[in-house]
């Protein structure tokens, strides 16, 4: 996985930065009462953002509501404020401050909603016939590639032979059984980013194997 090119040089905020973003960045870096007041305003902003995002996703999580959802949104806002404070030195003004800070609010409420849904549930880790059969039988006309029995068999062999136990566990849960990546991360006491890296490496191994065996066309990667 590569890193994206940065659009701004390290150092002070760009001259063209809008007034509001500059005010946020400077007041949050201030000490004493000014800094404390800025943190309070930031919490208000991100609390509204977490509620807004939770409302947008309510069709995905109808089982969560009322005080439980309020508490979840508040915790997400708390954690988003902590993340902003931790990363504030990395804010270079390449986007508006509010957009940048909203990113943390959305991420935190997203993780908490997903983990809440799987709380206490069993995360499937078995690479069993049922999981592969579902894959083979659930297709539509647009899914003909994966319905190829030969490809499925080759993929299943590759999962068994190419992946490390941790890669297999993550691949089977996330890719094969559609478990939310944040729920898997919670179970493994890890993070979304770390679990995705495991999944990404597993997928690359599987692709290479399937390419070597002629089941997939070779694709040049960077």
């Amino acid at each position, binding site marked *: 996985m590569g890193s994206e090119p940065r659009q701004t040089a390290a150092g002070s905020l760009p001259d063209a930065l809008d007034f509001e973003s500059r005010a946020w960045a400077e007041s949050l870096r201030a000490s004493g009462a000014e800094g404390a007041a800025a943190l309070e305003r930031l919490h208000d902003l991100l609390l509204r953002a977490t509620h807004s995002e939770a409302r947008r996703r309510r069709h995905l999580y109808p089982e969560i509501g009322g005080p439980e959802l309020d508490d979840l949104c508040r915790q997400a806002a708390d954690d988003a404020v902590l993340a902003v404070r931790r990363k504030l030195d990395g804010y270079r003004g390449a*986007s508006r401050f509010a957009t940048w800070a909203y990113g943390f609010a959305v991420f935190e409420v997203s993780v908490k909603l997903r983990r809440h849904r799987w709380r206490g549930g069993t995360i499937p880790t078995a690479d069993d016939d049922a999981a592969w059969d579902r894959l083979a039988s659930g297709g539509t006309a647009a899914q003909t590639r994966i319905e190829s029995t030969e490809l499925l068999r080759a993929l299943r062999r590759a999962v068994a032979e190419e992946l490390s136990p941790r890669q297999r566990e993550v691949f089977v849960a996330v890719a094969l059984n559609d478990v939310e990546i944040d729920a898997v991360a919670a179970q493994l006491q890890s993070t979304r980013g770390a679990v995705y890296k495991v999944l990404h490496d597993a997928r690359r191994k599987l692709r290479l194997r399937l390419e070597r065996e002629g089941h997939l066309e070779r694709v040049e990667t960077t």
Partner: protein
Amino acid sequence: MNERDPLTRLLGTAGNDSGCDGGMAVIAEYVELELSGRNPEDFFPGLAAHLRNCPACAEDYEGLVALVRRRHG
């Protein structure tokens, strides 16, 4: 963005992928490019690839777009 064929769901797409953490670092810029009418994939191809491969980050991206639209119109 979340509609993926089964092979992509299993194996992802080949090529450079920023990952969740790499994508998080630039997602605000990505969203503002999108909302300004430019193609963010031209600037951040690794994040564009990641959003095709990671439904969780793709959903977060949609959420961020919605929030910024609401704030700035």
